[in-house]
């Protein structure tokens, strides 16, 4: 019998661990976005850059996550992110500027800035914008 809620522990190198209780969590797994409900099987996955959504009733928390790992064990999720930003702390104008910059470098690659770097920057910017806007997948 699975419990009704999930306990999420979220930590990154620059942030002390925070615990959340949720009914549903959406993770940006490296093999695809996954939704986790209580009673989920044991999974270990790497995370890519994307939006993490923690839903508890009517409340939604959005985060931009940039790489890391997630350990899912039935009702406990441990997210060890390389970097994580809560939607409230995201500067949308800055993210959009970063996105435009990245688009430019992808269109016109210059010395010292590889296309891969620009694409990674672009993915980060998009994740920030999506998290800020509270967009669902």
């Amino acid at each position, binding site marked *: 019998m699975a419990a009704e809620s999930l306990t999420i522990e979220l930590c990154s190198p620059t942030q*002390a661990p925070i615990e959340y209780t949720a009914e549903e969590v959406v993770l940006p797994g490296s093999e695809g976005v996954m939704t986790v409900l209580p009673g989920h099987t044991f*999974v*270990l*996955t*790497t995370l890519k850059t994307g939006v993490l959504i923690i839903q508890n009733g009517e409340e939604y928390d959005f985060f931009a996550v940039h790489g890391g790992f997630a350990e899912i064990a039935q009702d406990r999720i441990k997210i060890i992110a390389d970097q994580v930003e809560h939607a409230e702390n995201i500067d949308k104008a800055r993210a959009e500027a970063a996105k435009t910059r990245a688009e430019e470098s992808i269109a016109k690659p210059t010395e010292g800035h590889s296309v891969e770097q620009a694409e990674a920057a672009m993915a980060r910017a998009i994740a920030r914008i999506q998290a800020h806007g509270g967009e669902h997948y």
Partner: protein
Amino acid sequence: MATLHDIKRRIGSVQSTQKITKAMKMVAASKLKRAQEAITTARPYALSMRDLVNNVALRADLVTHPLMAAATPNGKIGVVVVSSDRGLCGAFNSNIVNATIEHIQSTFPDKTVELTLVGKKGAELLQRRHDHLGEIYTDIDAADSVHSIATDIMGGMSKKYVDGELEAVYCLYNKFNSAISQEVTLEQLLPFEATEMSEGERDTDYLYEPSEEDLFEALLVRHLNIQMHRMICESTASEHGARMTAMESATTNAGEMINSLTLQYNRARQSAITTELIEVISGAEAL
């Protein structure tokens, strides 16, 4: 005997030294606060990371991973020594340098030790006392460079380990206990050794995304970088703590010196007055 003027000048110079040590203490205190925050957030992260790697390593029987398998002994080991870029922090740097020399002589007596140095001060001291030096990293103060330095060091070390140039890698750093207490600590980084855990946890089967090997590889590399990062952060916090304590005691010492010099000054002034009085009185009597 020192003249009044000389004493006064010395008091002035001690006072300006005290001003500097006081200011440095304040700066160290505020930097310590920031460094302490960084380390208190990085520690739980590093710990969760270690647990995770540990669990995966034990469950998955991945002893074949090149960073976990014991290297062929060749008598060469690598030690990363973390010191500071700046001086005036008491015995902080000499402690770590002495500990390094001691470990080379007693812990690894039959090995050739290659030192990788982080921090200018430790590098300056160890260059004179040790022959086998690897890379030297300085300017660790800049906030975003810590991560790239840590990644760089571990990348280089892992490569040397996998190529069979080094049979083990250790890190020697000042562990941050509190503002007034630091502890020189030696930790093994490579080969990575998983510690045992309780039976119950081990039985659970996990699904891995992507494959077990890829995930473990990513985890292990990340884990090593994070540990290195953490050690540098620990050392930075320790450095500011050590500096704060050193400057605090320097300020107190300067205060004591000012007091004793002031006493000396007053005595000298008094005796000058007395001499003058005697001269005046004996002059008047002679009339």
